[in-house]
């Protein structure tokens, strides 16, 4: 099965080609079928691979495909690497990918670009799988940029809306900034280890000293790449805008899979990071700050998808926190659980939007529990999960991260818990505003209200189940679990684990930590209930009065404005300056100056030809005298 791994990315690619080329001929149902089946098939294979890998002794297989680039000492084979890490990612990508495909058949049903949508979606899956499966940094980079491209295409799916196109470009460019870091890191790695194959690099790295400067530079650059892809400070602003894309896209790309590529990449190269503690701390701090900042912004957002977007950013922050404190397993665990519940929440939101006929402002919703029971129930599950209430999946993963944070540094933990509380608050705020109270929308919206079709609700249900139960793959020892995930990932992480030393925290402390975070979350939820259900408080309309802090949060701390002012406008101004002043007047001026000078010289020199013989002869005589003087000056 494992040597069939090349089929996993290939099938979606085929799906893409079929849908892409046949988009005008194939019927919608056929397109949907092709799209879903191709992904389903690769899911099946992935399962097979997973099973086989689980069974087999050796935990890492390299499946060569073909020889890609060779130049001098550089040789980049196009190989796939199958190991626990990638196999799990395979399951997530193909599995959730499949559910979202199914969902999309319903959600996008009335869209003109139905086939185009599915082809893009398949293409995305293809690239995501490349990213996951690549056995070296370059192949990973192909996927890395490929998913960026697909996200560009899908965010700009409704490109006739200028602001959407804008958002798409923003996403691509910001990713590009990270990608440059990735590229340079690749060069550094090549020149340090003489190879780009993971299998060749990590063993060498393992033998290097902690705090090696090259490794520091490499990891910093890789982290920059990660901030781009996983929307961390300072490159996070593109993700909320990316909500311009259709909701399934937000679910798949901007929640479940692509944005976690950064975490995947760092987990993949964990040993490099482990060996440069400075970077680790940087990662942790950036992650935490991002988590808090995004959470604060999420508090006051009214667009249901924006709330989820910021929550995603914040959750990603948690994951980076986890990485930073060396909880690779925890971080990856959170990737999984987050994939479940965030996908669920997005799809749920999509279902709501669908029902509200493309209304996204929560201020025009309310009391939808009755009309959308399934959606309501599933989303509730998701909300509880993300809020980290036991025994839902979010609890375990988040708690593992926090525990490590606590061990690493108390402050990190405190802030982390606060973040958790904020999360619980804004998530329940969203739920209450959407599903409780009375309907605040227009009449015909109310009239159209309806539960979504099966094709949409079934994925919701499946994901709900996963969000509820997903946590049990990683029950910590403290709770009498064996933490299956940890042991499964062990082969990938052992080197780091050895370097970092075992995680030890006595159970009582763990219990306390859990209690605190859970308690905080519950308190936050109750506060939200009091504020929005009992108090029936509805966020003010635009232009309405807000407190200073609320205003700050509502305007996303003016980060976009800041970037525009600090980077974009200066660059455009510089461009104008270079073009008009330096290029046109300066350099080109000099060039033309030669020509002009020559013609000026001509204008004046021709006047020498006065037309007067007397003058001519006079000049001749002068010339003769000069020549004689000049030549005899030398002899004497």
């Amino acid at each position, binding site marked *: 099965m494992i040597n069939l791994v090349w089929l996993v990315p290939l099938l979606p690619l085929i799906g893409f080609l079929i849908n892409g080329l046949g988009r005008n001929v194939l019927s919608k149902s056929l397109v949907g079928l092709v799209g879903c089946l191709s992904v389903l098939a690769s899911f099946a294979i992935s399962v097979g691979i997973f099973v086989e890998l689980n069974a087999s002794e050796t935990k890492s297989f390299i499946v060569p495909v073909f020889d890609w680039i060779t130049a001098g000492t550089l040789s980049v084979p196009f190989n796939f690497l199958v190991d626990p890490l990638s196999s799990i990612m395979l399951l997530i990508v193909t599995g959730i990918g499949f559910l979202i495909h199914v969902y999309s058949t319903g959600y996008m049903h009335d869209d003109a670009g139905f086939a185009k949508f599915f082809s893009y979606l398949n293409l995305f899956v293809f690239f995501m799988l490349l990213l996951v499966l690549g056995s070296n940094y370059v192949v990973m980079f192909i996927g890395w940029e490929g998913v960026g491209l697909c996200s560009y295409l899908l965010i700009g799916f409704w490109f006739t809306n200028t602001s959407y196109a804008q958002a798409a470009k923003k996403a691509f460019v910001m990713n590009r900034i990270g990608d440059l870091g990735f590229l340079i890191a690749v060069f550094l790695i090549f020149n340090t280890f003489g190879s780009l194959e993971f299998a060749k690099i990590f063993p060498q790295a393992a033998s290097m000293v902690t705090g090696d400067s090259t490794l520091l530079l490499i990891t910093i650059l890789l982290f920059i790449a990660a901030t781009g892809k996983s929307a961390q400070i300072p490159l996070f602003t593109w993700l909320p805008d990316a909500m311009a894309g259709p909701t399934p896209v937000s679910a798949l790309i901007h929640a479940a899979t692509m944005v976690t590529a950064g975490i995947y990449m760092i987990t993949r190269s964990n040993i490099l990071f482990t060996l440069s503690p400075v970077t680790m701390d940087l990662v942790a701090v950036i992650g935490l700050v991002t988590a808090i900042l995004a959470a604060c912004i999420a508090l006051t957002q009214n667009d249901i998808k924006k709330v989820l977007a910021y929550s995603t950013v914040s959750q990603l922050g948690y994951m980076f926190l986890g990485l930073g404190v060396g909880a690779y397993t925890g971080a990856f665990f959170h990737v999984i659980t987050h994939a479940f519940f965030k996908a669920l929440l997005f799809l749920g939101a999509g279902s709501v939007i669908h029902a509200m006929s493309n209304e996204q402002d929560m201020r025009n919703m309310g009391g939808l529990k009755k009309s959308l029971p399934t959606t309501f129930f599933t989303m509730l599950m998701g909300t509880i999960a993300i809020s980290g209430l036991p025994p839902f999946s979010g609890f375990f993963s988040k708690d593992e991260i926090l525990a490590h944070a606590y061990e690493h540094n108390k402050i990190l933990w405190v802030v982390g818990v606060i973040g958790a509380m904020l999360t619980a608050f804004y998530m329940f705020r969203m739920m209450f505003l959407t599903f409780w109270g009375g309907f605040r929308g227009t009449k015909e919206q109310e009239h159209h209200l309806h539960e979504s079709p099966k094709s949409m609700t079934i994925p919701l249900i499946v994901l709900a189940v996963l969000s509820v139960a997903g946590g049990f793959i990683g029950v910590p020892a403290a709770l009498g679990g064996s933490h299956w995930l940890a042991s499964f990932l062990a082969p990938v992480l052992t080197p780091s684990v050895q370097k970092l030393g075992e995680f030890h925290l006595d159970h009582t402390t763990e219990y306390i930590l859990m209690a605190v975070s859970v308690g905080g979350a519950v308190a936050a939820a109750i506060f939200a209930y009091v504020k929005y259900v009992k108090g029936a408080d509805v966020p003010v309309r635009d232009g309405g009065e807000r407190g200073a802090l609320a205003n700050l949060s509502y305007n996303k701390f003016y980060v976009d404005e800041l970037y525009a002012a600090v980077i974009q406008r200066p660059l455009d101004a510089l461009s104008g300056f270079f073009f008009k002043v330096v290029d046109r007047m300066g350099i080109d001026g000099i060039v033309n100056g030669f020509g002009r000078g020559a013609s000026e010289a001509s204008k004046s020199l021709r006047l020498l030809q006065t037309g007067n013989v007397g003058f001519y002869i*006079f000049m001749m*005589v*002068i010339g003769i*005298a000069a020549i*004689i003087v000049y030549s*005899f000056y030398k002899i004497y």
Partner: protein
Amino acid sequence: MGLSLFYFVAFLSVFFALLVIFSKNPVHSVLYLIVTFFTFTIHYILLNAQFLAVVNFIVYMGAIMVLFLFVLMLLNLNKETEPMKSNLLKVAGVIAGMCLLVTIAGSVKALDVSDPLVLKDPGIGLVKNLGKVLFSDFLLPFEISSILLLTAMVGAVLLAKRDTKHA
């Protein structure tokens, strides 16, 4: 005594030459020029170049100068019609000429040949002798100079003749 004679004649030549170029009236210039040429003839005689002396006397003073005179009369320029150049230009001209003089003279000043000019062979200037050389060594140039003269003749006719056809 010979030296002083040379100086005297040379002085005359220079004097009249200056008159040629400074006299306002072209006709006077011509007449002075004739005189100048006469002094040259004397020089030739002193150098015992008798043939040249004769030719100079006949061709130059006789033919060429008369031709000049004739043209002047023909065009009736026998008065101060010519507006002289501005003095500035004159001065400039003189200075330039002087520069030339100084430079050339200077260039040949440090000459070893200050020894008196001895007539090695007094006979060379005589017609007989020159004729020999002219018709032996210099036969070809002599012949070819006929082309020169012919050209001049044809050309002079061509240009000076009033043309009936207008172009």
